[in-house]
């Protein structure tokens, strides 16, 4: 090997950008969020509006709504989660591949909302880790878009390389689990 110069040589290799792996991985991830619409109540209607032409979620690179958890990396919980449905929500979350994020859309998904009831899960953060909460009953599509942009910012700050090498078999810490006790 006669060429001892292993550094970047712009004469040999043009059009190359030097960056950090974290930055490039996060940049790719945050601009191709594939949401899983977990539509359970009226919030799902606003979610649909956010995906339609007037609000156009594809402006932010997250229009590929996938109804299979295997093909999605962001679960948007849009609506009231009953205790009977909680099991399903958790299973679908478990079936999503890492890395994955959860958006609790609206008052019901965030806290149980107006349903102070024996049948309603008091916040989806009791069963899955939530990244972004959206207030509103239901939130307007702009609020959801704002939340998704906040999620993009959050993805942009992750230690992607470090996360790649850590084991993902253990579930991430639940924000609200057992908080009542």
């Amino acid at each position, binding site marked *: 090997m006669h060429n001892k110069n292993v550094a970047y040589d712009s004469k040999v290799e043009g059009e190359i950008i030097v960056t950090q792996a974290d930055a490039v991985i996060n940049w790719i991830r945050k601009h191709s969020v594939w949401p899983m619409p977990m539509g359970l109540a009226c919030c799902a209607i606003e979610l649909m509006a956010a995906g339609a032409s007037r609000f156009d979620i594809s402006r932010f690179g997250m229009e590929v709504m996938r109804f299979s958890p295997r093909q999605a990396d962001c679960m948007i919980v849009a609506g009231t989660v009953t205790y009977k449905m909680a099991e399903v929500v958790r299973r679908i979350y478990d079936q999503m591949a890492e890395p994955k994020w959860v958006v609790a859309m609206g008052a019901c998904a965030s806290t149980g909302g107006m349903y102070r009831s024996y*049948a309603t899960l008091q916040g989806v953060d*009791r069963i899955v880790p939530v990244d972004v909460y959206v207030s509103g009953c239901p939130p307007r599509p702009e609020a959801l878009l704002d939340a998704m942009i906040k999620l993009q910012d959050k993805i942009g700050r992750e230690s992607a390389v470090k996360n790649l090498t850590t084991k993902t078999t253990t579930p991430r810490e639940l924000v609200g689990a057992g908080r009542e006790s």
Partner: protein
Amino acid sequence: MAESDLAQLTERFDFISERKSSDHPALNCPAGMLVDFCRALRDDFGYDMLVDVTAIDWDVQSPRFTGIYHFLSTTKHLYLRIAVDCTDDLKPSLPSLTELYAAANWHERETFDLMGIHYEGHPNLTRILMWDSYPYHPLRKDFPLAGIEVPLPADDVAEVTKATVIPAPMMGGPFVSSGDGPMSQTEPSARDESWTEKKEKPAK
């Protein structure tokens, strides 16, 4: 029309009696005669549609439970309400109307689920809203509005998440709207705002 129906019914069936009602005509019927009576209602009096099946919990009274049935005649355009007292207060039961009206199937399952009334002869008397292992009947008067702590329906999810079905935080609720005035002032709010989840309810 309704009066003539009532007169004919009370004349033909000596076991029924008229019931006080503020809207539609209503009748009391003993549980043992319910199926025969409803068959006659459907076949001879044109009440061909079962609109609703529900029940009342009278709390401390006896009989404690009363089954309620709403019928509609689609030819005469008349409603009729039948009230049936359950003889047993501890394990209330009524005959099922599923053989006469297909609509009774889910309605009776719902009433069983929420009020705990057993419908004898129902083909599949299982819970329809709450999960199968749920131990209570939530619309009974002795069931608190917020609920009672029980395990989550799925064991594996409960194990991973450590979550349980908790009594819903009432934050000084239940929340009621004054219902009168501009919308900005009629937002539902707690009647008693002296306590929240964080602040204990003051002792009286």
